[in-house]
């Protein structure tokens, strides 16, 4: 992005300038934003969805939202309320959560289980032969928002305040969500390990 900087020293000013140019349908500016931000958005989407095609789809959709909504974002920017990177993260997380909910609804309707599995993670993790699959299973067993909290803070190493912003939550509520997410993850991991040891024995 620095190579195509509109000439501001401040990063936030750069972002505002990029949005202004995108609102004016400047394709070079848009391409530059894609190249700079798409990898981050793709990482978030992939770790939330566990599927490369879905992740690319979400990243593309989020970028097109930027293209469509840039004029309105400028209005926000004038009021001092726009920062491009957090906005892109928020849109990506929202789109991922939305897709997870839709797919969950479809899955529930098609394969409604007779009984809720108290620990759905354990089987999935034990059956996973690869380390990557086990990690994906661990994350996939979390509810959508807990999943997002772990992805943003653990993998992307965002401070809690930024992660809370991406999830449109206040910091207290986010910390509470994160605590629950970590506890659920540990519990599931321990259960998976216990089953694995039991199976080996």
């Amino acid at each position, binding site marked *: 992005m620095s190579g195509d900087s509109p000439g501001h020293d401040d990063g936030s000013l750069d972002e505002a300038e990029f949005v202004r140019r995108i609102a004016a349908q400047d394709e070079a500016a848009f391409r530059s934003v894609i190249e700079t931000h798409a990898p981050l958005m793709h990482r978030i989407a992939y770790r939330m969805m566990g599927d490369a095609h879905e992740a690319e789809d979400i990243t593309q959709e989020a970028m097109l939202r930027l293209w469509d909504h840039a004029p309105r974002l400028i209005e926000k920017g004038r009021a001092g309320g726009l920062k491009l990177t957090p906005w892109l993260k928020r849109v990506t997380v929202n789109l991922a959560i939305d897709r997870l909910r839709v797919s969950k609804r479809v899955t529930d309707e098609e394969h409604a289980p007779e009984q809720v599995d108290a620990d759905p993670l354990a089987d999935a993790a034990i059956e996973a032969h690869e380390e990557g699959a*086990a990690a994906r299973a661990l994350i996939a067993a979390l509810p959508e928002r807990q999943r997002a909290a772990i992805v943003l803070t653990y993998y992307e190493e965002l401070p809690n305040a930024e992660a809370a912003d991406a999830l449109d939550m206040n910091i207290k*509520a986010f910390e509470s969500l994160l605590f629950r997410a970590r506890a659920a993850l540990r519990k599931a991991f321990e259960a998976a390990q216990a089953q694995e040891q039991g199976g080996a024995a």
Partner: protein
Amino acid sequence: MSDPDTNSAPIAPDSPLGHALSGHDVPALSPDFADRVMARTQGRPDPLPPLRRGGGGKRRWSTARRLTVGALAAGALASAAAATGLLNDLPIDLPSPEQIWDRITGEDSEPVPQPQSEPQESVAPEEPEEVAVEGPIDSPEELEEAFNRIDERRGERREQRRSRVDQRLDEALQQRREQGLPAPTPEQEARLRERLEQGRDRRDALIEDRRATSREDLRERIESGEELTPREVLREDRAGALRPETRERLEEFRELSPQERRERIRQFRERRQERGGQRFRRLIEERPEPPAEVAGDEDSASVEQPDDTVAPDQPE
């Protein structure tokens, strides 16, 4: 197993869980990703114009009707109060300038005779006995007057809360549209608002039913010669609007120590904050059903609940 504190602590990358999570590698984006996105920008339709605030016609009419009825009722009550001299009997004691001066100087001045207006002949042959809600309430008239004042104030607060909820809903929809999330069509939005309105009406009717029962109890207590303080009446009247189980929890809450109460309030606010956002999201995202099918669903009104009722573990 682990204790709760350890469970919620940050995950160390060199811990067994950290090792397990580290396998979650991300594949690279397709090389032609940027080209594909650029290609998709061609021939896209213009974004929708900003949401017109104020909702549908029905809601506007219903708000206007409520405001008009409220204004007329407030005017009529104020006129009636002034005409019957009720305002003179409000328990507000304004000191005269002489009294203030005496308090400053510590002296007792001679009482200054107040100008007396000419006694007026009463138009009505018999003036009804004036009702003053001051000190203990021990007559049915005083109790009814207390109810009237409570209802008047409650009506204002209900209007404020409703407009706040409407505003939050407008903002949530606007935000969803801006962030590119699925948002209801105008028809779905109209149905959603109608459901919200129905839920409110249904909920108000339930509360009024419960309150009517609780007021009957208070009337019986007065008739049996009991004296009540205005605070007691207000408290009983508030609690009467709650469901029995909520009322029980509120009683339990009152028994807690101040520290425990503070902690419960903190937890409640936290839950409310999280739940409030989720409720709005759920309300907006779910496919609106025909009104007849959701007539028994209390959840449609629950979006208002955090503000509109005394929470089980929330102080009055």
